[in-house]
């Protein structure tokens, strides 16, 4: 509202503040300039008249002087008296002639001429030239009193004219400005209404955006919390699954395996006993087949145990288990396997240990099956809050963009294990340049 009030005052006040001084200046200019110009023109006219008169008198005197080269100046006063008689009607106040030395020709006029300085006289002169010599000078004075009086008399009319012009110059623009100001005010009112509506709209929009942003942020945080919870839950599930597997494996190993081992020993003893009696061969064969079945069962149990959970981890720990896998691989492949495991002092969760172990185990399996490598390098290290696993071979390698390879069960299984724990897995390979499997596993709070 203050802007509105300011605009209403500003337009007229601004123009008034500028026009007022200009109007006064116009008044002064018209009041002063015109009478002064009138005076100047009038006095110039008088001066021209005086100058022409001086020239005419000088010419008359010159002619007289030609007739009276020696005595012309004694005859001039009579001529001047005659000329003065006529000149009074033409504003000419005085006509005087001085000789070459500047002395008045007519001494009787000395007093009158010398005392004319107090009046408003404008003097003009013309030389009296006789031959090449200036023998005297004619001075003609015109009275500017009337011109000055006329100029003074014009002050008031021109002041009135100036006031009229100044008033028009002041009033007309202000009147036009008043009309324009009304239109501007109307437009401003409309603009103000539009601005208010726009401001309200903006305010609502901002509020809505803030609300939506807040809701989205909240939803995002909830989603992230849920994702983190799910990841932790998944990690815990993997851990529990692994623990359960290991428990089952231990159970199978400790109970069924022990029992079957005892059965096998017993069956071997039975066979030995039967071979010592008749029908011994049949019993022996049966025993032999039973033993075969027991061995087969034992092998299956061992395989099941290994599948459920590497019991070796519980037995010797991750470092030794990795070393054992590497040794087994070196023995099977007949190539050197360089392994280095540095786990630091921090204990790792069962899920992390199992995943790291399985990665190495699966990689070694793939190398033995496909790589045709001559050297293998295995690294399992803990750096900061992450476990880094890398298995490199110098085998034949493959095209990393090969989709079929990327979708192989072994690789998919490795990637799923890693991602379940929030880690990442890279497969780096090129034909003829070997293969590197690299994985990074975060050490979560479960560790």
């Amino acid at each position, binding site marked *: 509202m203050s802007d509105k009030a300011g605009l209403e005052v500003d337009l007229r006040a601004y123009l008034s503040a500028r026009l007022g001084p200009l109007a006064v200046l116009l008044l002064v200019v018209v009041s002063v300039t015109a009478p002064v110009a009138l005076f100047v023109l009038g006095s110039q006219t008088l001066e021209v008249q005086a100058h022409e008169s001086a020239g005419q008198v000088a010419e008359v005197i010159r002619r007289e002087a030609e007739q009276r080269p020696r005595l012309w100046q*004694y005859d001039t006063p009579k001529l001047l008296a005659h000329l003065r008689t006529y000149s009074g009607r033409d504003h000419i106040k005085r006509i005087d002639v001085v000789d070459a030395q500047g002395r008045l020709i007519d001494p009787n006029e000395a007093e009158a001429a010398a005392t004319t300085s107090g009046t408003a006289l404008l003097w003009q002169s013309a030389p009296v030239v006789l031959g090449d010599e200036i023998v005297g000078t004619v001075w003609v004075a015109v009275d500017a009193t009337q011109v000055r009086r006329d100029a003074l008399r014009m002050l008031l009319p021109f002041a009135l004219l100036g006031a009229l012009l100044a008033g028009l110059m002041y009033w007309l623009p202000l009147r036009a400005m008043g009309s324009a100001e009304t239109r501007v005010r109307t437009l401003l009112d409309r603009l103000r209404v539009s601005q208010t509506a726009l401001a309200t709209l903006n305010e609502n929009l901002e509020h809505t955006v803030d609300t939506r942003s807040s809701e989205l942020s909240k939803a995002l945080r909830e989603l992230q919390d849920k994702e983190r919870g799910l990841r932790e839950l998944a990690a815990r599930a993997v851990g529990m699954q692994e623990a359960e597997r290991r428990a089952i494996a231990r159970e199978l190993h400790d109970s069924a395996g022990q029992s079957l081992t005892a059965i096998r020993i017993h069956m071997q003893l039975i066979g030995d006993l039967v071979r010592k009696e008749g029908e011994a061969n049949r019993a022996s064969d049966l025993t032999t087949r039973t033993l075969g079945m027991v061995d087969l069962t034992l092998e299956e149990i061992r395989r099941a145990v290994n599948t459920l959970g590497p019991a070796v981890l519980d037995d010797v720990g991750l470092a030794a288990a990795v070393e054992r896998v590497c040794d087994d691989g070196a023995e099977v492949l007949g190539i050197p396997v360089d392994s280095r495991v540095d786990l630091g002092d921090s204990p790792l969760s069962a899920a992390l240990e199992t995943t790291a172990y399985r990665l190495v185990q699966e990689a070694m399996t793939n190398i033995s099956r496909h790589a045709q490598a001559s050297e293998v390098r295995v690294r399992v290290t803990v750096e900061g809050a992450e476990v880094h696993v890398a298995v490199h071979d110098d085998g034949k390698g493959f095209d990393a963009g090969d989709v079929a390879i990327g979708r192989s069960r072994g690789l998919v299984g490795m990637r799923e294990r890693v991602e379940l724990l929030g880690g990442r897995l890279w497969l780096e390979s090129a034909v003829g340049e070997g293969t590197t499997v690299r994985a990074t596993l975060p050490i979560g709070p479960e560790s």
Partner: protein
Amino acid sequence: MGRGSPQLGSGTTWLVVAVAAAALVVAGALVVVGRDLGPQPPFIGQPREAAPPTPRVHDPNAPLGLAGSGSSIPITRALVAAYNSKGGERPVLHPSIGSGGGIRALLDGVVDIALVSRPLKERERALGLTAVPCARVPVVVAVHADVPDVDITAPQLVAVFAGHRGTWSDGSRITVLQRERGDSSHRAVAAAIVGFAETNDDAYRDGRWRVLYHDDAMTDALDSTPGAIGLFGQGRVPDTRSIRALSVDGVLPTVASVRDHRYPFSKDLALVTLSQPTGRVAAFVDFVRSPAGRLVIEQAGGVPLPLAEAP
């Protein structure tokens, strides 16, 4: 639009306007005053000479010089010619410069004798000037030769100069020629006719007639202007010009009519010297006073004045 500080802008504008208005007023005043500061003649503000001019004597080695009233020129020219015929000093007669001009030339030592056709003024007498009357000449009412009238009365003369009578007897227009104010011929007529002086002054004031300030100019104007009338102060009208003298109230201007005072208008001519004439000046004055000189004067149309008669 410059918003925010209209008051400040207004104050500055007012200041500028006030300065401009003041400058304008001052410039106007300077222009008005400056007009009064134009060229000034050298005599403005000079004190008047306290003492009257000191008469100077004409160079004795220069020829005897005579100058003054144009009325005296014809008679003086005849006197100089007669004087020259005697041998010896050969005076020089200058053209007319008026009685006053002759006296100033005498006082300045430019001439030896001033020719005067009016009485000396008091201040001229105070300078020790000496006037020697020599002749009385008529003031002729002269007309152009084509004017049909031969006589004029005093009232008619006043009526003509007043502009009340504008034609001659044949209906032709009268052209009045005036001498300058203070001319001795006009003064002589004014002394003889009541009302002529006022009429003459009115004519000067109204610029009614053409004014001539030399006898020669008057002679030329009368000679060349049909229907002209004017006062001729040189005595006898020259026969060589188209000028004729009117009789006044039936009396023609002759030596006889002037001598016996029948003709009403006349003036006395005098020779003025710085002091009592001596030397060559006295010789010329004596010649003028001599019978020979008086004869020359009479032959030239003047009445020789006796020594006792004042100018």
